């Protein structure tokens, strides 16, 4: 192994402490200076039972995607873990409970299922914890101890993160957990002395800038706070709810408020009202809620009112797959709602961009006086990455509104048709600038007017404005050696990480391929995208949806000559699939 690139899974039933164990692995590895990308899956609609799996990819370079294979599996419940066997790498290590709380029939045990090459480490997790700390509660900690010993993770990294995690529960709990961990560590160190692995090239304490472990959702919440969010209105929906819950805790301390509204329509309504009155406000939802919002979103378009709407995509149509990831709301985000209602749509591709673009969205909404949709997806919202503490500059968070000049007091024209389409915007409370905003077509003064010339002119103003926003929107980023490429792969959202990983691998094998990241979905940088497409012999657009929604939007830039690779599986895009498609295209092209 050139560097570290290991995927560790913890699998158990709800109640086994699976998620906690996975989280501690992430934290310990981050503390050890490695990069981490973690993604948990747990039963979302069935309570009290069901399978929990945490997946952590750990490496010494930036982690772009989930790996295709798992190298270490820590099983807290064999019956559940059996489902993970197919993703185990050759040569993987499996830790399991040799004396589980529920009896497991031999033929249902993990040991009976795994490949012969797999190294099996059976340990009595519960017994170890009980004898060390007097309770089997630390079963998962004992398993972690075994993991640290078997895979060569310095135990002090775990000591550090265990202490930090349980501090708030009191010294006793910390102590019990440390003891359980140590018991597991000692047991494995001794029992498996001759087959210990050193998977992690001796991580020590991290150097360099301090890192935090953030999910996409948390990054969005933090970004909103840092950007000076005043009011959050929302309605619970997976996978957006954690944003509301985070802000509910944080915002009141900063003088803001979170209001759980009666539905999504009320939520976007209140956001429009608050934004109209000048406060930074936002809502977050998912596809079904977004659909309900579209009527009012177009009101924001017509009346030129800022609004920030986060659409955390999940599987569709309809209620669909609430706990699965998909990128199938692009169409709705760009085209939903009545009329020609252009709006800004941006889509981050990783946790850092979740932060960055959320911060940015407020300014964009204010400056361009229009709803801004930030499109994330379940995978991006729920995965964690360790990254340098994200921060927003003064400039990033500056109020974006263009105010009218004092000189026009009393003769203010709210919807003045300017070159960019941006009209100076007064806020209620300002003396001498009173106006009425409306979702009806209106003159520059805001008076309803349906005459042909006026509608043509004002439609043009609004669309010109949206087009002019392009200069402030994040640009496509190319990852290639430049020049002509045999295959160019275009990605967006959480899929882009998989695209880049596949392209990196291909390039490392000497293939002349490149990747283009698109984060501005609407308006989009047609010139730059078209230029890139023009340099590629073949263009590949992998997406996590059935119909190729980004491809539908941009493939005309290359006369529709693009190759789509669409997955409607509800799971993150496997880089390996992209890689083999690249190879297939190269073969076909040769």
């Amino acid at each position, binding site marked *: 192994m050139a560097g570290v690139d290991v995927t560790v899974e913890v699998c158990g039933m709800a109640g086994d402490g699976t998620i906690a164990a996975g989280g501690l692995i992430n934290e310990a590895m981050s503390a050890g200076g490695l990069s981490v990308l973690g993604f948990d899956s747990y039963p979302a609609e069935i309570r009290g039972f069901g399978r929990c799996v945490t997946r952590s990819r750990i490496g010494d370079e930036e982690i772009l995607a989930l790996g295709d294979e798992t190298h270490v599996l820590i099983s807290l419940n064999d019956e559940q873990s059996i489902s993970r066997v197919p993703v185990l790498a050759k040569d993987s290590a499996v830790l399991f409970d040799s004396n589980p709380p529920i009896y497991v029939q031999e033929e249902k045990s993990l040991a009976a299922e795994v490949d012969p090459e797999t190294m099996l480490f059976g340990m009595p997790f519960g017994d170890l914890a009980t004898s060390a700390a007097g309770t089997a509660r630390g079963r998962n900690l004992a398993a972690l101890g075994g993991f640290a010993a078997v895979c060569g993770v310095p135990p002090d990294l775990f000591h550090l993160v265990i202490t930090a995690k349980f501090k708030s529960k009191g010294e006793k709990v910390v102590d019990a957990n440390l003891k359980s961990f140590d018991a597991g560590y000692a047991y494995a160190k001794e029992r498996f002395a001759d087959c210990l692995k050193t998977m992690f090239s001796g991580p020590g304490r991290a150097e360099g800038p301090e890192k935090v472990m953030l999910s996409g959702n948390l990054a969005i919440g933090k970004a909103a706070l840092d950007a000076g969010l005043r009011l959050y209105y929302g309605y619970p929906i997976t996978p957006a709810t954690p944003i509301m819950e985070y802000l509910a805790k944080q915002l009141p301390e900063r003088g803001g408020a979170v209001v759980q509204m009666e539905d999504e329509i009320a939520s976007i*309504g209140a956001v429009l009202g608050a934004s109209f009155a000048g*406060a930074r406000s936002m809502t977050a939802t998912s596809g079904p809620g977004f659909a309900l919002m579209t009527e009012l979103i177009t009101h924001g378009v017509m*009346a030129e009112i800022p609004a920030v709407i986060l659409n955390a995509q999940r599987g569709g149509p309809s209620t669909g797959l609430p706990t699965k990831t998909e990128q199938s709301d692009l169409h709705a985000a760009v085209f939903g709602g009545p009329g020609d209602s252009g709006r800004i749509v941006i889509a981050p591709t990783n946790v850092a961009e979740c932060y960055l673009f959320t911060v940015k969205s407020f300014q964009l909404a204010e400056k361009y006086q229009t709803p801004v949709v930030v499109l994330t997806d379940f995978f991006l919202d729920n995965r964690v990455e360790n990254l340098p503490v994200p921060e927003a500059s003064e400039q990033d968070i500056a109020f974006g509104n263009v105010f009218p000049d004092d000189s026009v007091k009393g003769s203010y024209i709210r919807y003045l048709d300017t070159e960019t389409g941006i009209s100076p915007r007064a806020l*209620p409370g300002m003396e001498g600038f009173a106006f009425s905003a*409306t979702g009806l077509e209106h003159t520059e003064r805001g008076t309803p007017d349906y005459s042909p010339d006026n509608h043509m002119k004002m439609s043009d103003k609004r669309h010109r404005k949206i087009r002019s926003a392009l200069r402030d929107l994040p640009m496509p980023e190319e990852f290639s050696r430049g020049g002509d490429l045999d295959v160019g792969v275009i990605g967006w959202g959480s899929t882009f990480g998989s695209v880049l990983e596949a392209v990196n691998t291909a390039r490392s094998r000497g293939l002349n391929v490149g990747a283009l990241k698109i984060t501005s979905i609407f308006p989009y940088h047609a010139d730059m995208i078209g230029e890139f497409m023009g340099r590629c012999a073949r263009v590949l657009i992998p997406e996590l949806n059935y119909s190729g929604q980004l491809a539908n939007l941009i493939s005309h830039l290359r006369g529709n000559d693009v190759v789509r690779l669409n997955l409607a599986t509800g799971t993150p895009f496997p880089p390996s699939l992209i890689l083999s498609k690249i190879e297939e295209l190269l073969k076909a092209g040769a």
Partner: protein
Amino acid sequence: MKTPGRDLADKVAAIKNAHVFDVRSSSLPTWCPGCGYFGIHQGLNACIRELGVPLHEVITVSGIGCAGRYPFFTKTYGLHTVHGRTLPVATGVKMANPDLTVYAVGGDGDGLAIGGGHLPHVARRDVNINYLLFDNSIYGLTKGQPSPSSPVGMKSKASPFGTHDKPLNATLLALTYGASFVARLFAGDPEGITRVLKEGTQHPGFAIFHIYTSCVTFDKTFKTWANLKKWVHPLPDDYDPTDYKQAFNRVLEDDFCTGVIYRRGE
């Protein structure tokens, strides 16, 4: 023959003479001559004038409908939203800038049909906005369909054989939802509207004004001026608006008493 145009000219002259252009905008309301909304307009304008709130610190938020057209006819800030969403939008406005005096305005279709799901929650939250529900028991703007407050049997193009559904009583709804200030008013009594609006505007919480009014163009049988004048009557002088249960029983018995029906006690 007197054409509608002439009627109108008379009206305009009358308005001009009343010197009330300090609150109403110079653009002439597009309501039909004789529409009850003129009376409400007069009442609210006087309220704002008499309270002495600077106009730029007042905002009128409305839905869609003839009532929804309101913001274009005042000099305050205005926000003409979409059908039924008056209250959530007004909520956002008020929370963003509590210094603003917020009037939310909408029709009975706007507030009781498509927007009927919002009223309970703005009442529960007790957001300090003032909601004027223009209840003419008909959809005016879309030309005369029955509304949730139309009486059983009402005939219209959309209900040529008469409606079947029991009407909703907005005053009773407001009480049930826990609104902290509930008034019932009559468009034919602008002074009464002004008086109660002033009180409600100063109430620190959600205030709803359920205003009976007449759509002279599409309703020739139910809420006509003649009927309304016959029906409405003020609450007795000794009525105690702080008694919640009494308010309920009053409203259950009497559909047409006007005044402050309920006000949260100190």
